[in-house]
Structures are given as structure tokens and as C-alpha cells.
């Protein structure tokens, strides 16, 4: 498991590449507990978001197994009317990074590129 310090450093680098980041968290998939978190808005409860997002990822993995899909889950992109949420699984599959950004300030391609660039090599 990457340390909290390393994860926070990666989160800081992601935020420097992306405009409009609302919140970012590294989350333990099994428990839904945050391993590292940074929220730029007081009303965005990252603990709650992390917990329920872990359920979302687990459900997606269940669906893939039910459909007998052998491929691995890399990321999940969710588009809201005013936000974009990205969930990126870290290598090892036991944790993921969750990022929420303002839709008017960035786009999916930028988010995916920044996450791939700064999370490469973490586990």
C-alpha cells in the first residue's frame, strides 16, 4: 500500500495539472476508508463519498464477474450536470483514487491524463 504521504504528493501533483478540482481521495476498496484525502470544499464530505464509491466499484466488479468479463477494471467516469467524477483503480486492485472536478473548468480527457500520469507506479 502506498503511504499517505506519497498519495498526498500525487494528489497535489494532479491538482496542479487540473483546474476546478473539488476533492480527491485515495480509498481502500475493502473497507471504504480513505487512505489520503484533500477536499477543496467544506460541503463535500469525502468520507461519505469514498465509502459509497467503494461500494460502487465493488458492484461494478460483481457485474463484470456475472457477465464473465475477464478484463480488469481500470477506471469509471461519471458525468454529472455540473461535475465530473473519476474513479481510477490503482495497480494491485486493493485501492482506488476518486476525483471530483467542476465540469465547466476541465474535461474527461484532462482528468484521465493527469490521473494516469501521477498515479503510475503507485499501488
Amino acid at each position, binding site marked *: 500500500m502506498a503511504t499517505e504521504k506519497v498519495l498526498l504528493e500525487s494528489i497535489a501533483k494532479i491538482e496542479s495539472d487540473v483546474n476546478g478540482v473539488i476533492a480527491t481521495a485515495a480509498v481502500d476498496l475493502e473497507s*471504504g476508508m480513505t487512505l489520503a484525502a484533500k477536499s477543496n470544499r467544506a460541503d463535500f464530505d469525502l468520507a461519505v463519498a469514498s*465509502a459509497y464509491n467503494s461500494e460502487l466499484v465493488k458492484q461494478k466488479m460483481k457485474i463484470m464477474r456475472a457477465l464473465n468479463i475477464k478484463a480488469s477494471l481500470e477506471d469509471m467516469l461519471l458525468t454529472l450536470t455540473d461535475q465530473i467524477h473519476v474513479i481510477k483503480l490503482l495497480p494491485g486492485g486493493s485501492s482506488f483514487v476518486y476525483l471530483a472536478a467542476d465540469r465547466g473548468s476541465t474535461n474527461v480527457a484532462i482528468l484521465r491524463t493527469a490521473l494516469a500520469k501521477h498515479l503510475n507506479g503507485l499501488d
Partner: protein
Amino acid sequence: MAVIDPRNDAVVIRVVYDGPPMAGKTTSVRTLGKGVGGSVVAPEEIGGRTLFFDWLDYTGGLFEGRRIRCQVVTVPGQATLASRRRKLLQGADVVVFVGDSAPQEQSATQSYLEGLRGVLDKVEGPPIGIVLQANKRDRPDAVSLDLLRTMLDRIGARIAVIESVATDGSGIREAFVFAVRLALDRVRELMRTGQLRSMPPEIDNAQDLLAELRRCEGAALELAADSGLVHTRLNDVREPSLAATALEQAVRDNADPVATARPSIWDRTATAQAASGGSSATASGEDRTTRSMLDGARAGAPAPNAVADDTKPPQVPGGDLPSGRIWPPVNGRLLLHAATLEAALLRRHVNGDWVGALGSSWQMHSPAGARFADVDAGHQALVNWARLHAASAHVISNERCIVLSSDGLGGYRLWQIVRAERSLRDEFDAALTDEPAVIAKALVTLTRAFLQAGERFSSAACWLPLSLRNVAALPGGSRFLGTMPDPQRARPAEPRSQATTMRLLAVQLEYALPELQACRTQALSVLDQMIRVERGAPLDPTHGFARRFLDSAFV
């Protein structure tokens, strides 16, 4: 103990931070509190007294759709008050043991750890996991992790180790999240056995805990507060109570050091598997029987959902597995964590099994056919195998687990991981380099343990091979050290007569004839003295065997 709180449908678990004084428990919890945005409450803020425990209430994560409410409590330095520390620990679902990495603190760390295990072992229900948070790793003279693991091996502790520097937050969150995982393993087991109750927690906040401690300790706390004691152990200034003395004695009695060595992993793993008709057979009367057993089992139907192509090297299990894929729960996860810190060496046996070693301390085995395309089928196989292990628990070594993990090839594979412990063969090999008197006594001890194993293995849930490399004399009796057969290959245990066991032992000891010949006369003399001491009593069969073996082997 964990409960489901019906008021908010949350799982409530207690995470207790224990450890010697000044190791960094309070700093760890306060740093954790800052990180998760929770506030830490100390009793000094309640009731106007300085009582030195910290309470952090944090809700986060999800378990089976329920929020996880963590009551995080530190055991204060003054908790050498046996009743207070015991009370706090008895309510734990997991313990984070904070240890100081300074060399001069290691004996206190070991002593406290042994005491902790003594207390936790008496708590009912599934085992309570322990995470060792090795703190103050920024010290230039911090002891190495290898030394810490050696200490843990010495006291027979299955404990995950996570490094930390509490003052800057490093490792704090990792240790906490790992602890939560262990607690959830325990909750899952409570759920499975119907012991997880739905009720508001008996201790719901810091005030409740304070009231409970006051009720338990009465005047002792008043004395501590009135004397203005700060970070001073009460036991240093008053006579130990009878209860404290009794607890210390009980803790000492419960500390069972387990001797460890560096056994020949490949020999043991290869022996068990090769005896089934693999690469190198050993001089064992069991060879033919074992071989025919495996041949018979392999002729049977393949496992449901087993994938045919089993030739590509599978991915070795990692330390992070979801709950429900490790047996036994809690302890299995701790074992897996320790084992997977070592480098893995894997090879495919001629019978299709995958066998290997993790470092020099662990052997691993996955039967041919233990690969599943479907995780549910794999889970069912894990449950079946766990049942076999559980039914044989009284005769097999404890340091083992079964895991179901992704094989990296799109499927899942079932593994058993067993700690390599010092076998009868290892003990006797060490004695063979010593004086004749030692050799003679070692031969008697070995014979006794082997005969006991022959008798005990008959009561296992399945047939277990009996060999010097597969048996250890452990506290509690002779135990099987090898890998268990998978349920599809297992056949019923058969009673072994003492005569059969002795014949088998004689064959297995033939390798030592050159050394025994060199000291035969002196060893016989020692044995005769041992037998003379028992004159009038029925001849101990172990002495009789040892003498006959030495006497007749060189005729």
C-alpha cells in the same frame, strides 16, 4: 465487542491503541484525528481530572452497506493498572500496538506484547487481531524491521508490522486502515456465527467509558489524581495488589515461545508432494501408499469450474485480499501479511500442483485443479477445504492459512500457506552433531513424539503422511507440519498400530546410521542408565525402541 447500532444502522467497532508508555499512542491517535477531521477527547476535559486516555469517534467506510463507526481508544501509560488496561483491551475488536523503535525499548515492547496477547487470548469470540505500529522510525538508531520480526517469531506472534513516524503522520493512516480491515474480518466471523448483536453500544462516548472505568477501578483512580501523578506508573509507588501479581503470573504462564529455525523448505514440500510420485522420492514406507492415494484421487472427476490449462505460472497471493477469501479470518490475514513480505519462488510439480516457498519461512501449495473461472466456485472450494482443516485442527500446526486469490490469468486459485517449523528431523539432525548422551536422549524424545504423532494422526479428518519431516513436537503435542491434501484427494484417516509406526520410524532413521554407529556404545550406555532408572516400572516403549534400534541396526 462489535455491534450493529440499530439507531443508525452502523457497525460499531472498537480500535484500541496499546503499547508501552511514551511509545506514541496518544500522538498517533491525535494525528489520526487531524487526518480524518475528528476531534480527540481526553478525560481531562471531562470532570476536571487528568486521567490520560484519549477517545476518537470516527465514522467512515462501508461494511455490507452499513457505515463503520470506529471508537478509537488509547490505553494510557498509567494503564499498567492491570484492571484498566484489561478492561479497555477486552472491549477491542482490533489492537494497534504502538512500539518504540529505539533499541533500548525493545524489551519493554516484547514484554507488553506478551502481556497483551495473554489478555486477548482470554477474550471470547473470534481472535482479536493486532497490528504492530513500529513508531519513531525516523530515529537514526531505530531497530531494523528484521529484528522486530525476529522478536515476533520468538514469541510466536502473528502480527503485521507497519512503520510509522507519528509526529509527522507517516504510517498512521495505513496502520489504522489495516486495523479496520482486521476488525471487519472479526465482524464477518461474528456475523457468520450469529454472535453479532443489534443494539446500541454499551459504551457510546468518552463519558460512558470514564464512568465504566471509575466503576471498575474505584479508589485507585482517585489516588492517582489526588497524588498529581503524571505519566507515572501507579505500580511504581504502591505495593502490587494480589490481582496484579496474579495477572502478571498468568501472562508469564501464557507466553509460549516457539523455537524457529531455517528448515529446508524444498525438502519438506518436495517430500510431501514427491511421495505422491513426483520428482525425488524419499526413503519412506509411505511412498507407495501416498502415490496410490494421489493417483486414485486424480482419477476422479475434475473440480467443478476448474480450468483445464493449468500450466502457466499463476500469480502468487498478495497481502490485500477481500474479506471472505482468507481462512481463518483475522489470523489468516495476519499470516498472509507476514508471508507475502517474503520473495516467492514457485514451481510446477509433475502431478500438476504448484508448490513453492515464500522466503525461508513459508511453504505454499496449490493443488492441480484448484483453479476456478468463477469466484463463487472458488469460494465454495475454500469453505470445503477450511472444513477439512478445522476438523483436523487438533493435529495440524496452527501457523497456516488458505486463500483464494486472482491468478493473474483471468481466474482464481486456491492456495494453502504453511509456516515452515522445526521438524523432528531438524531437531535430530542438530542433536547428531552433539555428544552421545545428547544423541541418545534426542533419539528417545524423537521416538516419543513420532509414536504420539502416529496415534494422533489417526484422529485427523483425513489421512496424513507420517514422516520425520512432517512432524513437530510442539506445546500441546505432536503436530503435522505439511500441506493438507485438498478435499477431492483426501481419504479417510486410518489407525496405525504402534508396531507399524515403529517400523516406519526405523526406516526413516536409516539416514542417521553412520553418525549413530560412531557413538553407538556410549549412546547405548546412556540408554541403559535411563532404562535402569525406570526399573520396576513397565518398559517405556520409546526407550525400548531406541535401544533395539541402536543395538540391532549394526548387526
